[in-house]
């Protein structure tokens, strides 16, 4: 699949006199392969595996390439096991790449140099780093010591974040007494106290209710706006991605399927559009125009091939008494699901 150049790069080509923006994350033909033992079911096979282990190579990430520029918020999408977390771990220095290149802020992440680690942060929605039995405030204090944040800056940032997330009354409670959402907010405050330039957020809103998801989203967006930090976010909730990310990278079976604008994803992968219409004179048969998704009284919803949309729309307008008509793209979730299903069938 061809890589779509980001808007900035296109803009750059047209305006050669502008200084070249340096990508903050630079990934070229990056791969991570795992050797996993193959073991068949059954006692005899298990016994044989003790002596002679068979291995199989799993390509968790397979030659992916992309750039991320300063201040960009990029959604990293893909089904479970697509290679999202493996990629984030390589970007944050936890995993060594099998081959290919990674540069984050100009550093090779896996060397884990101090200057690099001081500028990044990693948040994992399903794992905690705050001490369970301590009030979050104590854990923040530990973060201050680890990052060597000067006292007054520490206080100022901490109080700023606490106010933004409305946590004033909770910071003195032991973390174990907080709700899942409150705990996640605390985790994020702790992870941002050193004011990182690059944020790797792996499912930061997993398991949270809608209100809590929205609060966290708003906060990340605000952090990005205030400090110009770059964010790479994986999430199963498309609402997160729609609210935060202009650009998405879709990964499946370790390969990039799509890299570009969120709206372009729909444009590219959805073969259908939905026409919603209200008729002036009650129900009529609409089968001749397209697939009727729903029809209730004078309201109806039709699914039509994308290329046919304008022709069908004008036919409807001339042949029927239409009170109101709108053409919409299908929900992003549906599009993504279609993409993954098609890929699964192809594989």
């Amino acid at each position, binding site marked *: 699949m061809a890589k779509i150049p980001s808007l900035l790069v296109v803009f750059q080509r047209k305006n050669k006199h502008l200084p070249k923006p340096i990508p903050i994350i630079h990934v070229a033909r990056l791969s*991570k*392969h*795992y*050797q996993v033992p193959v073991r068949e079911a059954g006692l005899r096979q298990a016994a044989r595996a003790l002596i002679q282990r068979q291995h199989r190579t799993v390509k968790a990430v397979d030659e992916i390439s992309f750039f991320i520029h300063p201040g960009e918020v990029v959604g990293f999408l893909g089904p479970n096991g697509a290679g999202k977390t493996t990629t984030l*771990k390589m970007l*944050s*220095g*936890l*995993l*060594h790449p*099998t081959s290919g290149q990674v540069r984050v802020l100009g550093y090779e992440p*896996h060397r*884990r140099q*101090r*200057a*690099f*680690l*001081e500028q*990044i*942060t*990693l948040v*994992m929605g399903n*794992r*905690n*780093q705050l*001490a369970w*039995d*301590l009030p979050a405030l*104590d854990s923040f*204090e*530990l973060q*201050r*010591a*680890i*990052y*060597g944040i000067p006292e007054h800056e520490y206080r100022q940032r901490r109080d700023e974040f606490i106010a933004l997330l409305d946590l004033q009354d909770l910071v003195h409670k032991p973390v174990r007494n907080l709700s899942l959402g409150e705990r996640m907010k605390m985790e994020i405050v702790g992870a941002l106290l050193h004011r990182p330039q690059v944020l790797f957020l792996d499912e930061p809103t997993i398991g949270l209710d809608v209100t809590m998801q929205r609060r966290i989203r708003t906060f990340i967006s605000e952090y990005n706006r205030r400090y110009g930090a770059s964010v790479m976010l994986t999430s199963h909730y498309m609402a997160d991605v729609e609210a935060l990310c202009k650009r998405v990278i879709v990964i499946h079976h370790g390969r990039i399927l799509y890299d570009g604008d969120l709206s372009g994803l729909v444009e590219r992968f959805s073969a259908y559009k939905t026409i919603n219409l209200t008729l002036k004179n009650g129900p009529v048969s609409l089968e001749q125009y397209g697939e009727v998704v729903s029809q209730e009284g004078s309201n109806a919803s039709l699914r039509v091939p994308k290329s046919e949309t304008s022709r069908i729309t004008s036919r409807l307008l001339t042949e029927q008494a239409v009170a109101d008509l709108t053409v919409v793209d299908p929900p992003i979730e549906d599009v993504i699901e279609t993409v993954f299903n098609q890929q699964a069938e192809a594989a």
Partner: protein
Amino acid sequence: MRLLSLAYTYLRVGILNELQYRVNFFIQILQSLIALVVGLIGLWLVFDHTTDLNGWTQPELLAVMGVFILMGGLIRAAIQPNMMRLLDDVQQGTLDFALTKPVDAQVIVSVREFRLWQVVDVILGLGVVVAAVLRLESRFTLPDLLGFLIALALGGVMIYCFWLMLTSTAFWIIRVYELVNLFEGLYAAGRWPVSIYPNWLRFGLTFLIPVAFAVTVPAEALTGRLTPLTLLGAGLLAAGLFLLARLVWRLGVRNYSGASA
């Protein structure tokens, strides 16, 4: 400087946390006293039959017991809890957080936990040591005290290194919780001076599990038996073990991040 301030912050937070659980303090006192009484009965039983055990008199053996209790307290207060947390972190993948911090990860995993109430054993052990020294026939001098403190510190370093190597095996073999019981069992051998054991066991307790250096050598310092050569040997062994432990830890982390694959 930064590492010291980091260790201090962890210590302070750990102490504040433990202060919340006062019941544990009383339970610990009870436990420590029971252990002390059992130990004293053991000593009394031995000296009911003989006046010295392989060259160690009663007050001298009391000194060994004091060091044993003191060192045990130090291990359970500062070393063991950190290593248990490291085991959990490797299993649950939360070690990722320690590895993405701009501080040597070995330092972080070694200073995070502190069990304040185990200090009861340290104080009790110190009390037994003082009682033993007062009953010794020879005079206790300042160089003896100095030798004792150095030997104690070196012993602590060696036990830490031993534990770190043991725990680092978790990077390859995930389930190693039984190791704790194994260690406790072997450490219990330190209740007596290692010189009373047969040669093969003494070797194991000296170089494999450095119980001899953690307990017997500091006790030798208290009883005027410590030679400069032993102390030098302890220093060299501590340095060697430290380098080895660091190597094993680094290999473990490499394995964890798939660098070796």
